[in-house]
């Protein structure tokens, strides 16, 4: 399966599993979503469980909060993560705080799905990586899969979770893994281990990282598309790196991070999002605080630049093989 099919399968599985799961958003009903993630679901489960919405992200998230207060398990879609901002007040002030401010009387078991990330010539408003906005909010969980297998298992876990989850889908790797070389032929998930998706129900616990490869030379912390870019760059450079796919950004699998950095003594953090106050800063800070006496070199951070996401200069902006390669070299030099 590709990642879209895996997500569709997860939604199908959970809708069959739990009559309180409802799926809605712009174009997700009859049409099945602009990326086809909800294809055929309306036909199978009916219009009262899978439906199109007005173009109003505040309304989509706000209605989801009300549905959750009633007792449903809403899975709204925001068409692009770049367009989640009109719904932020409902997410930050409401969904994230509902359990706390009502002392558990009301909860928000909502999973907000949204495609994110660049590498597709999406320009300023179809490429952003806003995960740091969510990891900064107490009461939200942020999940980002890097393979179809993980996408299905994590989405099922997210829908079952009784707290609000932001489920960001790296759209660059919907159809296949990406090695960071925009000029090479694109690959599909067919021959990739992560494209093997079991039938039926399974879940992957939130808050647990996945070791992509074990290694001794350095720890690489990445998520989403950058897991694959990192994997390919480090393989090409012949570096015996240990690569962790964080999968859940928050709550972070701090044990896996500590264990790996204590073993390798070096740490490279990679994300597509802009650098300043990005999630990488939190990772760097945690590693510095908790693994300081194991560190043999300054922690490196490879990110997008502190600019809006450009269109024509996409591959100059994208934190690809060259930028990662330089950081790896600096880490190895020390």
């Amino acid at each position: 399966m590709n990642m879209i099919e895996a997500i569709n399968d997860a939604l199908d599985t959970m809708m069959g599993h739990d009559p309180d799961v409802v799926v809605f958003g712009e174009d997700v009903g009859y049409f099945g979503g602009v990326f086809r993630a909800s294809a055929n679901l309306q036909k199978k489960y009916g219009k009262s469980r899978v439906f199109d919405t007005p173009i109003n992200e505040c309304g989509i998230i706000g209605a989801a909060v009300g549905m959750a207060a009633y007792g449903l398990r809403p899975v709204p879609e925001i068409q692009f993560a770049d367009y989640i901002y009109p719904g932020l007040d409902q997410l930050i002030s409401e969904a994230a705080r509902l359990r706390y401010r009502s002392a558990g009387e009301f909860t928000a078991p909502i999973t907000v799905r949204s495609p994110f990330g660049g590498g597709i010539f999406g320009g300023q408003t179809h490429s952003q990586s806003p995960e740091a906005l969510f990891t900064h909010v107490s009461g939200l969980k942020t999940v980002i899969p890097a393979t179809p297998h993980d996408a299905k298992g994590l989405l099922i876990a997210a829908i079952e979770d009784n707290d609000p989850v932001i489920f960001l889908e790296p759209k660059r790797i919907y159809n296949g893994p990406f090695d960071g070389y925009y000029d090479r032929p694109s690959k599909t998930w067919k021959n990739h281990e992560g494209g093997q998706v079991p039938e039926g129900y399974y879940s992957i616990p939130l808050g647990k990282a996945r070791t992509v490869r074990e290694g001794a030379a350095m720890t690489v912390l990445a998520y989403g598309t950058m897991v694959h870019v990192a994997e390919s760059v480090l393989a090409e450079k012949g570096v015996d790196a240990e690569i962790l796919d964080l999968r859940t950004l928050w709550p972070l699998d701090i044990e896996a991070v500590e264990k790996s950095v204590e073993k390798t003594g070096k740490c490279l953090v990679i994300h597509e999002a802009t650098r300043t106050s990005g999630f990488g800063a939190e990772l760097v800070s945690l590693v510095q605080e908790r693994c300081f006496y194991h560190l043999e070199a300054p922690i490196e951070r490879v990110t997008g630049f502190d600019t809006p996401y450009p269109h024509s200069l996409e591959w100059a902006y994208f934190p690809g093989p060259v930028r990662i390669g330089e950081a790896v070299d600096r880490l190895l030099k020390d």
Partner: protein
Amino acid sequence: MHGAPAASARGNLPPLELHVPEPHSRPGEKPDYSWLEIPEAGSLARPDEACPASETWAGTLGMVRVLDEDNRAVGPWDPALDPETLRRMLRTMALTRAFDDRMYRGQRQGKTSFYMKSTGEEAISVAGAFALAADDMVFPSYRQQGILIARGYPLEEMINQIYSNRGDRLKGRQLPIMYSARDYGFFTISGNLATQFPQAVGWAMASAIKGDTRIATSFVGEGSSAEGDFHAAMTFAAVYNAPVVLNVVNNQWAISSYSGFAGAERTTFAARAAGYGVAGLRVDGNDTLAVYAAMRWAANRARANGGPTLIEYFTYRAEGHSTSDDPSAYRSAQEREEWPLGDPIMRLANHLIALGEWSEEQQSEMDREVAEEVRTATKQAERNGVLGHGFHHPFHTMFEDVFEELPWNLEEQAAQAIREREIKWPERVGQKHSGDKPRTSAQGSTESANEDGRGEGQ
């Protein structure tokens, strides 16, 4: 140099002017109500509850009014309630006002940090609650305490919340008056304005998805109706024909901003219903019978799958916005006395007196009784402490309920807070705090409310 271009004349065109609304009177001025058109009681037709929304739109510029100059109930909107129900509504409104008065004094006495009265607006929440079924879900703003009181929520629980004491079911996490009472169909109040409006629509959609018979209702002030959430709620309510009653309490003032800043100079708030294809009603908010009749009409319509209604209650915020506000700084002090729609409690009492079902003696006796009821509840609640006197919830409760399960970072931070306590309040060192281990909600923590947390240096 960039910046705004200088004014330039173009031919004979007059220069454009920015219009900034100005209220009808300011401090020191005589109130002016010449702008206010008050339709005669009984003059507005009552459309069938199942009518097309468009049949209601003409009425959104008029006003549902039942009580006339002589305190009689007149016209097609008269809900023909029995005197016993009217007396119960009157008493609930009086209790709400007495509660507000007492809590306001409590704030002035330093027993809590903050309070907001609903004086003059009691009919809207109380008659609204009477017109709804007990299990219909309310998504209130912060000025519908009358609904909680009408639904029989214990006053003592309300006061515990206001005092953030160890009896507070919200564990001292929330600003006073931000109640949450799920068992009473009263949704957790948020400080963020109008967010409850689309949430109510979502709740109503859920009720429809599940084939339930319960409906939702929500309240915003006219000021908050300018928020984007209002538009989101109206659009969603219309699109899905959601069983919801959306209410705008137009009390003329949003803190210091008069209703013109929410658009009142151009049209009524009820009239906005037309643009969404939603039924609309404009109601004399100080006329208890009119409020009841309108809410009943809209609730029946919603429950019969007739769809949503927007109701504007035309009223006046008789007191300051909150205990942090001094209205004499921005509006005429006489506005309240001269408000042409009077006082909701007096109007209902006079109606009952006109019916021969009430007397001034009974009114005085009732006022005495409700004041006593509030006094007793206050005394009870004060046994759980008042703000800053140390009877609060244990430290670890601050970290609970952020998530269902406590993540590692909150476990670490809870340990930090408990460690800091021994430095900040050394008199407590050596005392046993069995309840200070953080726990997940699944394990429950309600019993921790009884733990003595006295003496924390305030």
